[in-house]
């Protein structure tokens, strides 16, 4: 067990950012943390890394309360676009210092990635562009080989070619050196193949914790005649419905109805990508962007 999280809450002043979250992460998995802006992803990750206190509940990482804990900090790296490095050291010096700090550091990998992404040894971190900063931080995150590696929105500012390279490098290095990886992202469609499990949070609550394979089969989309489909879904659990075309309806619902029944009504079935499902499951009560314009 790497992470044990039981009824963990976090509040700032009067507002609750995380509300009694419970889940467990077992060893050597890549887990994706998915949620909208402000859902509480960074707060959760920073508490796991031991940067921030919990407000209540029981959080254990490697069997310890992570806050101010030596075991946790020696075995964990937290990568985001705000990693702080000493301003007087060049990029190359930073890699050398990181090698002294992280027990499992792979200097060869760090050097090869450094060269591949065309960094200059004498450059300074604070002079890098946003995307280059993220790329350098990613190199540190991968080369550290930390038993718990946390990437919080690691691809901020990276162009799509670098993002692809990053995902590929992450998977290759994980296959060669399995470890526990937590990665938060807005781009679930880009990372879903890498993931084993997914944690979906919305507004401080845990919505779903499942394997990505189960999430791919969790829901189905049904299209059909508006009034027929509307009558049929009555009483069923629906994640999303919208009118399409002139009198057709598009519905996303839990995948627990036999295909034959749906086909008998002449409805059309299609799959729902984990990314779309995540969007719909975290968008239930607010309606859509169309409502903003329609209610004018």
């Amino acid at each position, binding site marked *: 067990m790497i992470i044990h999280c039981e009824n963990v809450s976090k509040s700032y002043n009067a507002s609750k950012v995380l509300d009694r979250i419970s889940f467990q992460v077992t060893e050597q998995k890549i887990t994706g943390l998915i949620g909208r802006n402000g859902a509480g992803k960074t707060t959760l990750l920073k508490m796991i890394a031991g940067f921030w206190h919990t407000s209540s509940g029981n959080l254990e990482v490697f069997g310890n309360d992570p806050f101010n804990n030596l075991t946790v900090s020696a075995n964990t790296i937290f990568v985001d676009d705000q990693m702080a490095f000493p301003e007087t050291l060049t990029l190359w010096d930073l890699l050398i210092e990181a090698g002294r700090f992280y027990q499992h550091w792979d200097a060869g990998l760090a050097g090869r990635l450094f060269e591949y992404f065309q960094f200059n040894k004498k450059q300074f971190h604070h002079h890098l562009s946003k995307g280059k900063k993220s790329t350098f931080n990613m190199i540190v995150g991968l080369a550290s080989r930390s038993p718990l590696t946390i990437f919080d929105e690691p691809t901020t500012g990276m162009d799509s070619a670098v993002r692809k390279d990053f995902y590929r490098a992450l998977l290759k290095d994980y296959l060669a050196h399995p470890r526990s990886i937590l990665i938060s992202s807005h781009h679930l469609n880009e990372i879903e*193949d*890498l993931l*084993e499990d997914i944690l979906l949070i919305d507004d401080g609550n845990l919505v779903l914790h499942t394997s*990505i*394979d189960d999430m791919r089969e969790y829901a189905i989309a049904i299209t059909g005649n508006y009034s027929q489909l509307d009558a049929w879904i009555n009483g069923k659990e629906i994640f999303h419905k919208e009118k399409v075309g002139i009198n057709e309806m598009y519905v996303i619902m839990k995948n627990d109805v036999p295909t034959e029944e749906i086909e008998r009504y002449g409805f059309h*079935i299609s799959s729902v990508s984990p990314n779309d499902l995540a969007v719909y499951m975290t968008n239930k009560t607010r309606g859509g962007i169309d409502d903003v314009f329609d209610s004018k």
Partner: protein
Amino acid sequence: MILDHRSTTPIYMQIATWLETEILKEHFKQDEKIYSQYQLAEMFQINPATAAKGLTLLGQEKVLYDKRGLGKFVSPDAKKIIKNKRKNDVLVKSIEKIVMEANHLEINESELLQIVQQVYREKGGEGK
């Protein structure tokens, strides 16, 4: 093969189907060791757990068998099992769809059979 993310078929089943085709093409012969979950993960850029699920599926269908500690191997009956399964699952289901489409288009049985025969003459024997 490129994975189809828009398909209703889950990734692990696409992996299983691809391996079946490799076996039918005899790229893997009887009692030969098949790709490991890690090799498949690397080839298709997927999580090894997803690849493992595809392998497990083929194990359950007796297409593959386990040698403890050595990996998964192609079982002697693999081709027979795959052909049987595909005939029932893929071929019959595909024909059901074709017949339904023919109904929509008001194409009768003999017309449809003619088309099938024509396509068979053109494409039959390909893909072996």
